[in-house]
């Protein structure tokens, strides 16, 4: 049942994603991509639970490495997106 439930969530969020992203104007496509990069760093949430088991086994080291990589995405992605979006100005401002 769990699998069906998760698949249900998957289906709904893909449709929602299509609706949302279709409304993003072409001028913002680069910030959209770097922002999406940051969101894909959500893997950090999964990595945290694996890196903190305290078992000092392979899974923990892999988890810690995943935390580092995903954090690069999260921190770098949001910061660079903000840096870009700060540059977008309307005429006469």
């Amino acid at each position, binding site marked *: 049942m769990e*699998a069906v439930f*998760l698949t249900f*969530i*998957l289906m709904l*969020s*893909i449709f929602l*994603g*299509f609706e*949302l*992203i*279709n409304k993003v*104007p*072409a*001028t*913002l*496509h*680069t*910030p*959209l*991509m*770097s*922002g*999406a*990069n*940051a969101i*894909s*760093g*959500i*893997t950090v*949430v*999964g990595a*945290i*639970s*694996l*890196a*903190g*088991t*305290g078992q000092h086994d392979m*899974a923990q*080291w*892999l988890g*810690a*490495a*995943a*935390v*580092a990589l995903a*954090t*690069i*995405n999260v*921190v770098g*992605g*949001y910061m660079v*997106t*903000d*840096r*870009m*979006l700060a540059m*977008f*100005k*309307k005429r006469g401002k």
Partner: protein
Amino acid sequence: MGATGLAIQLAFVIAAALFIFGLKLLGSAATARKGNLLSAVGMLLAIVAALIDQGIVEFQWILVGMVIGGVIGAATARLVQMTSMPEMVALFNGFGGMASLLVGAAALGAGDSNTFILVTIVLSILIGGLTFTGSLVAYGKLSEKIGSGAVTFSGQQIVNSLLVLAILASAVMFCLQPENSQWLYAIIALSLLFGIMAVIPIGGADMPVVISLLNSYSGLAACAAGFAINNNILIVAGSLVGASGIILTQIMCKAMNRSLSNVLFSGFGSVSSAETVVEGEIKPISVEDAFYVLEAASSVAIVPGYGMAVAQAQHVVKELCELLEENGCEVNFGIHPVAGRMPGHMNVLLAEADVPYDQLLEMDEINPRMETVDVAIVIGANDVVNPAAREVESSPIYGMPVINVDKARTVFVLKRSMASGFAGIENPLFYKENTRMLFGDAKESIGGLIREFS
């Protein structure tokens, strides 16, 4: 589920809502920055929630990972040049993929494993692995650390098919014998190899498609990892990213009038380009003469391409734009969807140079006005303004929507030399009656024009 467990799940729900609302605010340039901030708050909330999970008994390695990742991420975000944004996004896609691969592999040791979980572990390793190496190759091509052309060899399709079969076979064996780790290693190695094989046949001009697609994969890999460790927020966030990448991929393919499979499986260089006989002659123009034409113009359209990024000419372009406006001339920019090396690349560069975003017109907006434009200035763009796409049926880019600069009264093409564009296609625009070539480095040529004005 205890009180803490419930709090964690609730935090994930709120985080998902913030991601969604953040993306919604990205629908307008005026609210986009706020949207990004909301999305970041959502991420912070999700991370804090993950940290208070009672299953976590040791924080030191989490902290080490976060500090290392945070420093690298922050430094990259601050230091990266706007012209290098495509490389950075490619690299980040790769990191996201690798993180999902590691989470997938670690999940195997951590949790209980039924066939469904094993399949999702395979998927997160497979998608994550090919995203990682594929992105590294894309990064190498974009930063010109490796040749940016399409690498093709005879029997490539066969090699790739065998690779896919080997991956499938290893995946099946892995699900049947999860305790035998050699199948796991086989899947990891094969998916890493597959990422390389999938991206090398794709040429530099097709990079906007590849980078969008890899963006999508990095989200789908996170999604698969979410299934593997039974975590909702990974699935929601991952599929939002996956959907975003897929939409951008579609837009890019449409803008090149090519199907996705055509981009992925046939290097552009290998398209048999029929010899097009181009009539007319090249008419160069001096900076001085170009200035006289521009001074008399009342409407100018600037069409930038990747060459503007290479020459770092966006700031002088803005300066010229201001001088023209002071002279009573209306200036607009025409941005082709695949101008540059990633979606929206030109818009970011021009935003960096303080060009207001409402002055940047999309192809469909600028084309109907082209006949009223006195001077169209093409800066470092080639294929996206090639009239052969409309006129020459034998041209490999025939049918691709282009910006019709040739319909303007006069066209200036700023170009280094007569070499053809990335796609290697002859451009009849250069030979048209109303076209004048301004040879030289784009930054210097525009600098020359600015000096004439002042």
